[in-house]
């Protein structure tokens, strides 16, 4: 007589644990529990994948080379300032390659002076072979390039995290993947396009002076239709003075609904950049039009005061990502470290602008290399269909087993139910994310559960046909089927593990449920049903078995 008490207790414990872990994922019931009881439960549970609840999955790549160029451009500015400070005139500084700066000067005797001055830039080293008598070539060291690229990614990660935090998304996932990729997952988001724009915007805010002294400035057309920008740039190609560029201001004709662009001749030199901002808020102006009020930090405020003082009655362009928002005339010196960014935008646009300004600029533009967006309605559809077909399939199988194997089939159905409860319970315990392929994995495991029982029952039938008494037949059936079941489960487990280790995204979700399911299946098929048979055969010598 085999002991069954221990195995029964084990089964009961497993079921109770499974239910305890799963309940928090089922708010309809969970919320009705009294608070003291809720505390007893582990509070997480199964999360729904993006395919089931809707949301965005983005893989972004930082344009590292641009990050290096931007850093080098900044150094170019600093070098120009430095040369001006040291009263070294007649030298031009330009970025001539990705990480290369060339300084050209008129008289060769300036060379030593410039070399001396540039000792302040230890990240750059002179490439003597590339220079001539009247030029000096400086290059960024490889180590420095690597450092810039690396910090660009970390900074981008940080910036995106800030922006998402301020945008307000429940349980976002933002992480680095590999060397230069960033994965952003925003489950259950309602306005995917807006969120994507918010993430992708470089948000590089710059204050630049208009070049009104040049004749070209007056020649530029008042405004052109949107889409004509390239034509304008082409038209004036070669006529733009060195150190200047043409940038466009957006405007909207409210009556016709047409969008226009106004070209301005702007000095390339950045007077002040967005990294000196300490705050940005949306305010409503006197004509009910929203604007963004920015506050500078102490250093920025001083700089801003100095710049405005030096450029009274001149126009300053407020440039965000190479688009002019406005180009007001500086009326007087502005102290106090405040400025306003006006422009034709809606309250929502102003809001988003304030968010990106507060969160800071990205160190370089981002490229989207993968973008999966699932609307909430499709998610609901999928979940309903998935559950419906799972239930339907389940009912069909349960009925089939009960009809074909009668009482033994019912016992197998009990094992199957046990299987499902344990599987869902352990998914919840692992805080796994349930995806559509995951549901498919569950269904497949159920199929394998049925197969184990079929194997055992067919073996028992064979034993019975040979005229063995019921108890011996049951034991023999289980023993002989055991090896087959283990072999078949292990081979499937090997597939599952390979999928888990090397698969990505949806494949991984499938692999998790498959591997868990197989392990649980072995348990329920070999322990769960056997214990019932043993109880049935315990006290009396059973004459016939309903199988």
């Amino acid at each position, binding site marked *: 007589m085999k002991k069954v008490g221990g195995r029964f207790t084990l089964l009961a414990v497993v079921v109770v644990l499974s239910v305890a872990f799963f309940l928090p994922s089922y708010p309809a019931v969970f919320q009705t529990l009294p608070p003291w009881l809720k505390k007893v439960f582990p509070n997480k549970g199964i999360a729904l994948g993006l395919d089931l609840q809707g949301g965005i999955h983005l893989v972004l790549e930082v344009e590292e080379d641009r990050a290096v160029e931007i850093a080098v451009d900044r150094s170019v500015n600093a070098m120009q300032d430095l040369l001006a400070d040291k009263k070294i005139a007649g030298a031009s500084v330009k970025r001539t390659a990705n990480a290369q700066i060339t300084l050209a000067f008129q008289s060769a005797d300036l060379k030593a002076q410039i070399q001396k001055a540039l000792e302040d830039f230890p990240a750059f080293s002179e490439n003597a072979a590339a220079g001539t008598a009247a030029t000096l070539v400086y290059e960024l060291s490889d180590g420095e390039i690597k450092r810039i690229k690396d910090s660009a990614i970390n900074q981008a990660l940080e910036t995106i995290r800030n922006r998402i935090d301020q945008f307000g998304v429940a349980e976002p996932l933002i992480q680095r993947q590999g060397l230069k990729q960033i994965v952003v997952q925003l489950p259950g988001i309602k306005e995917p396009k807006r969120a994507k724009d918010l993430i992708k915007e470089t948000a590089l805010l710059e204050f630049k002076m208009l070049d009104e002294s040049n004749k070209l400035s007056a020649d530029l057309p008042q405004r052109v239709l949107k889409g004509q920008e390239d034509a304008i740039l082409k038209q004036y190609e070669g006529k733009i003075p060195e150190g200047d560029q043409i940038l466009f201001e957006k405007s909207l004709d409210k009556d016709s609904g047409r969008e226009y662009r106004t070209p301005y001749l702007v000095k390339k030199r950045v007077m002040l950049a967005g990294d000196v901002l300490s705050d940005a808020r949306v305010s409503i102006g006197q004509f009910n039009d929203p604007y963004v009020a920015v506050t500078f930090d102490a250093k920025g405020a001083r700089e801003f005061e100095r710049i405005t003082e030096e450029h009274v009655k001149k126009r300053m362009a407020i440039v965000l990502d190479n688009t002019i928002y406005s180009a007001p005339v500086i009326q007087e010196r502005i102290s106090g470290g405040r400025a306003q960014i006006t422009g034709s935008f809606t309250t929502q646009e102003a809001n988003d602008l304030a968010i990106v300004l507060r969160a800071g600029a990205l160190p370089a533009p981002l490229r989207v290399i993968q973008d999966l967006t699932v609307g909430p309605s499709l998610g609901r559809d999928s979940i309903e269909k998935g559950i419906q*077909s799972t239930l339907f399939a389940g009912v069909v199988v349960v009925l089939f087993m009960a009809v074909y194997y009668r009482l033994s089939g019912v016992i197998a159905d009990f094992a199957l139910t046990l299987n499902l409860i344990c599987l869902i319970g352990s998914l919840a315990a692992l805080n796994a994310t349930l995806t559509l392929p995951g549901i498919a994995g569950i269904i497949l495991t159920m199929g394998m559960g049925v197969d184990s029982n079929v194997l055992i029952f067919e073996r028992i039938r064979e034993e019975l046909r040979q005229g063995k008494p019921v108890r011996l037949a049951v034991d023999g059936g289980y023993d002989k089927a055991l090896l087959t079941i283990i*072999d078949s489960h292990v*081979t499937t487990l090997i597939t599952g593990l*390979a999928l888990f280790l*090397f698969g990505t995204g*949806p*494949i991984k979700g499938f692999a998790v449920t498959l591997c868990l399911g197989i392990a649980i299946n072995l348990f329920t098929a070999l322990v769960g049903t056997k214990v019932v048979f043993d109880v049935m055969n315990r006290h009396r010598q059973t004459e016939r078995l309903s199988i």
Partner: protein
Amino acid sequence: MIEILGKTNVDFMGRRKIAFVCSGIMVALGLLALVQIARGAANLGIDFAGGTAVQLKFDQPVRTDEARAALERNNLDGAEIQEFVAENKLLIRVKAATTIEEKVADRVVAIFSKEFPSKTLVVESSTEIGPTIGHKLQEDALIAILISFAGIILYIAARFEFRFGVAAAVATFHDVLAVLGLFYALDKEVTLLVVTALLTLAGYSLTDTVVVFDRIRENLRVRRRDGLEIIINNSINQVLSRTIVTSLTVVLVLIPLTLAGGEVLHDFSLALLWGVVVGTYSSIFVASPLLVIWPGGAGKLLKRG
């Protein structure tokens, strides 16, 4: 006792020549599909090939040809359009290497909003995948497949003997190719989910083969006098009712999934459905005959028996 099959005594091994012809055709088609995939000429899903897919739901029906005309008027050629008639849904796919820069998804939505102003639309899902990611996924999938095959051969070789391992692996590969061939013949898209299905059915087909092999091993040990072919035939007949019952239940599960599981699960279930049929067939008609025709004859199990 309800039985679908009573005691059977079918000469499976005697029909192996017919079976080999059938298998040959399926494998050939599968190999053709494999070559086409490698050449990039097969119908690969955008998760492998890179590109954009947008699924739109309208409040009124939009016909496929209207949609195509609208896209072409706006210079968006080469889009594949799939219609889910019952739900007024359109799935628009653009495969191209460079799409990600141009924001094709936004363009598609803009075109439909402009061309069909009277019909409101909802973007149900949009997917954009850069070519590098697609390439990485292809590699990952291939590695996963190779690793699992190696693992399986090793395990079965250890549990049985080497030729059992090879026979099981060949049979499994046969099944994967057969399903791939079917997808190629039907011009169905090979997506990440389909690859998942292929791996699943590989697992299923293996289970099936292992069950048959197990019985062969058992009989080889007990019955010393019978020839290999007779033992294999008997073993298959002995497990036949299990094979049929199990396959039947799995098919019972898969049919509702194929018919009502929604567009996402349809191809997945179809692949599995065909995989189950072929998997059952292959453990009887591919894996087992391979043991018979394996050169060299007796292995360690046979010597003992």
